[in-house]
């Protein structure tokens, strides 16, 4: 139970970035999720103490946001967009492929803890619709076939670091815009890869 010193130290650093402690709630919840893959009640207790609010106040905040998962997620969080631009570009077919491959319904995680599937709202890749994210790394211009290949690749290769560029190159298609030179950083874990959270790694 409770957090290790190194994590607590990181948490305190985050708190120090803000004029008021409570503002750190958002990043601290991301941090908690990078540790457990979801927001555990234990994390809630730890964070609520750190920022000086009650546990239920924090739970109230965490459950408001869809990225703070209330149950453990798999190693790969597959988020397929179903909003308007993707919807009219047949995102239903992409969703079906992912569902079939993983055997999961919306917001479910498989027994092995490998995949979590969710159909999500617009991820800002509408120019490359249909699109999805794996651990918040975006792939655009999907076809059902390539989606299947992407899933298979994840299952087979089990990449530790998920990098948008790599997936886009191998499985993506038309993009919303040019992404500039290949970026080697990606995400470890089903959380956004972000420096402050130390969830970003360079692919070697």
């Amino acid at each position, binding site marked *: 139970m409770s957090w290790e010193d190194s994590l607590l130290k990181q948490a305190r650093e985050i708190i120090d970035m803000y004029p008021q*402690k409570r503002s750190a709630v958002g990043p601290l919840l*991301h941090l908690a999720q990078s540790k457990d893959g979801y927001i555990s009640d234990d994390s809630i207790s730890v964070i609520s103490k750190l920022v000086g609010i009650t546990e239920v106040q924090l739970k109230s905040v965490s459950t*408001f946001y869809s990225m703070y998962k209330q149950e453990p997620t798999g190693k790969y969080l597959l988020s397929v967009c179903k*909003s308007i631009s993707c919807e009219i570009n047949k995102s239903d077919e992409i969703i079906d492929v992912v569902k079939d491959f993983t055997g999961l319904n919306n917001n479910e995680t498989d027994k092995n803890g490998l995949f979590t599937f969710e159909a*999500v709202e*617009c991820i*800002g*890749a509408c120019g490359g619709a249909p699109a999805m994210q794996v651990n918040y790394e975006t792939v655009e211009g999907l076809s059902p076939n390539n989606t299947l290949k992407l899933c298979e690749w994840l299952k087979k290769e089990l990449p530790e670091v998920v990098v948008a560029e790599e997936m886009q190159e191998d499985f993506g298609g038309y993009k919303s815009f040019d992404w500039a030179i290949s970026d080697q950083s990606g995400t470890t874990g089903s959380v*956004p*890869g972000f420096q402050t959270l130390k969830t970003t790694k360079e692919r070697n």
Partner: protein
Amino acid sequence: MKETLLLTKHMRSNPEDSHLIEVYEKSNGYKTAKKVLLQESPEKVLEEIKDSNIRGRGGAGFPTGIKWGFLAEDEERYLVINADESEPGTFKDRILLERDPHQLIEGIIITCFAANIKNAFIYIRGEYAKPARRVQNAVEQAYQKGYLGKKIFGSDIDLDVVVHLGAGAYICGEETALLNSLEGRRGEPRLKPPYFPAVKGLYMKPTLVNNVETISSVPWIVENTGKEYNKLGVEGSTGTRIFSLSGHINTPGNYEIEMGSSFGEFVETLGNGVRNGKDVKAYIPGGASAPWFRGDQLDIKMTIDDVANNNSMLGSGAVVIMDEETNLVSAAKSIVSFFAHESCGQCTPCREGTTWLEMILERVASGRGRTSDIDLLLDVCDNISPGLSWPPKMTTICPLGPSAVSPITSLMNDFRDEVESLIPTKILL
């Protein structure tokens, strides 16, 4: 029709590495900020912004100069960059964050100088992991160079910038919800009045909330003067704007253009026409919240006022093309269920109404509709947005609830047959 590149010029000229500080500086980056901080007055900058007549790019289109002028006096004031871009169809802030983060930072420096602000936050939606990474890197580079932090550019001015990640809530794009979120609370919009950000914003202190594109425009305006900017585009919609084009279109993407030409021209030239040579059945002129136009309305001009005069809005600048084969009921359902999912749940009509609308549409779309459902849909809409007029009247706290009404009124006004055809006629209830 051609693009006019102000904001996207640097990234176009440096397709590989426009996001790096060295590259940005090679394109004369940070020169304007430095000059302004060392040589000019805040008043002068504000004048330029006012002269430019730029209107906010976040959706509401409020004149930026006037907004800055409203900022109440206080020792503690904040700037918050709204990078929560989540309106379906919109991906223009993403490109600015990912490809030209230093332009945004330079805009922030100038803005904070003009408004005497010492703390800025960039609130980026959590799903934008990579854009956030790029911005965070850029902020760190700027700190290293002494462009952020203490005594920036050797002036007397201090400025801190924090990159803050959201966590999956469209409503946090609404500026007061965003402030709540940034305070570590539920992203529920605040009541206006009394909580106008310019007076009682972050931590109840005067706060400027501006969109990424708005602030990214600031360096160009200040460098080239507001008058020059004002010459671009048309009256009421000056300057350039990045439109996100998507849907059934040959070349979707972000296009920076001067406002004033027609949607049809935009689709034909920059969009290279509708995919597979089909006709446009309907299109959304400004993001999922905006009422739709029919395919025979492509001659409407892409300006804030022209679109408004035709009972819709240019909103976030997201143009979504739906071709003749599109199932519009499914399309409407997709949009309504977006708003139902994203409703914060504070107010009764939005919380209950959007979900109810979604349920009815679901029934209709799957062939289980009742004849009475058409009137029911409209009446539920009317209870969220009385009179179904434009701009919408609201029974709600913020415009999200009424936004769910837009696709339904569009369907009912212009494509009623399509809805009716899905309702089995035998069930008369």
